[in-house]
């Protein structure tokens, strides 16, 4: 427990959360390790966990019949992964595959939802942090959508 608490405290997502709230979260946490190529989760599976990544790299993939799995994003050290545990029907929307040896803290989604319901202050604090992650990802995704490096993109010079 002790070391989980320490690891969590140092992670950018959890940093500066009150000690009481960290303790509440630790109650839902476990250490996990994924070998390269191993799936953390697959599309349509129940999204039971939320990952706080400590090291390594995870590819988020969408399967396409034409090209097979396409990586839409990679996430790694210092980042978090997954919000499907937060919204019904609590199912993953894509695959998560470890590209490198990946170490993470997995938080049980059901347990975490329960703690947030019981302690709205913790719930609000986590929502604020998650909202900031969503905002960053949305922002990046928009740039990706623009396909700015494509030579057929609208002219950039005047």
């Amino acid at each position, binding site marked *: 427990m002790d070391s989980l608490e320490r690891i969590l405290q140092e992670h950018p997502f959890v940093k500066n959360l009150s000690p009481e709230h960290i303790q509440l979260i630790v109650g839902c946490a476990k250490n996990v390790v994924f070998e390269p190529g191993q799936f953390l989760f697959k599309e349509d599976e129940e999204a039971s966990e939320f990952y706080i990544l400590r090291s390594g790299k995870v590819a988020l993939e969408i399967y396409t019949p034409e090209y097979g799995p396409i990586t839409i*994003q990679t996430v790694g050290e210092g980042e978090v992964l997954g919000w499907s545990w937060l919204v019904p029907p609590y199912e993953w929307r894509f695959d998560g595959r470890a590209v490198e040896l990946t170490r993470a803290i997995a938080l049980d989604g059901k347990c975490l939802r329960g703690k947030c319901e019981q302690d709205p202050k913790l719930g609000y604090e986590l929502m604020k942090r998650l909202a900031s992650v969503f905002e960053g990802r949305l922002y*990046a995704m928009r*740039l990706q959508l623009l*396909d700015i490096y494509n030579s057929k993109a609208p002219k950039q010079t005047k």
Partner: protein
Amino acid sequence: MDPMVSHYEAIELQMVPHPYKIHRVIKETHDTFTLELKSNTSNGKFAFRAGQFNMLYIFGVGEVPISISGDPNKMETLVHTTRAVGTVTKKMAKLKKGDVIGVRGPYGTNWPVKAAIGNDVVIIAGGIGLAPLRPAIYQIISQRKHYGKIILLYGTRTPADILFRHELEKLKSRLDVDIYVTVDRATREWNGNVGVVTTLIPRAPFDPINTTAMICGPEIMMRYTIGELVKRGVSHENIFVSMERNMKCGIGFCGHCQYGTEFICKDGPVFSYAQIKDLFGKREL
């Protein structure tokens, strides 16, 4: 002599392209190629500063500004890396060894390679934007001990679009340069990062207070990149960008490349963000 006449003569002289023979053509990616040129007439040496560009003239087609992408210390060969996007550059892509093109330059301002001495250097490139930064990378690496951390963040469309791949791999094998490459999309064969280049900035290991950042890429990429650097604490004075506008004369005469009160061809293309922040991202410019 009438001073006005000599003034116009001087300008005219600057507008005359010099013939250069294509010594080697390197196909970099499906749409990008490098031309190594040797002078037909001069002493064979071409001095330039990292970040400067030349006007390249394809006889009977037209003239385009292209940054010099070679090593400033190797003056015998003049190197340009170009992406075939339109009339002139597509014609240029078809040229072969032995063909001749017109060159005038070098023009414009340079990357702050000397001013960055003592600092961490963060070089952030998007797509073809790596080419105008390559001379700065050569120069900085050749004087490695004078700089703090050297970090290259490079974003491009897919793994097949990675420019100078072999050189990047060689550079990565050095233990004193950090290189992070990211692509916008990839299949499973790619084990690197996927995502836009701005996502690499929050965790890149540089000291924001003592960092000089040099950015080149599509303007929108530069805008978001500056945002992330400023968020990390890099000052506006220490962020440098290379700007692009269509050009005609290249020497501050025709006004074609006007950008607010600046002319990109002679006041730029390299500007500090502090210099142009009031213009940057403005829609009407």
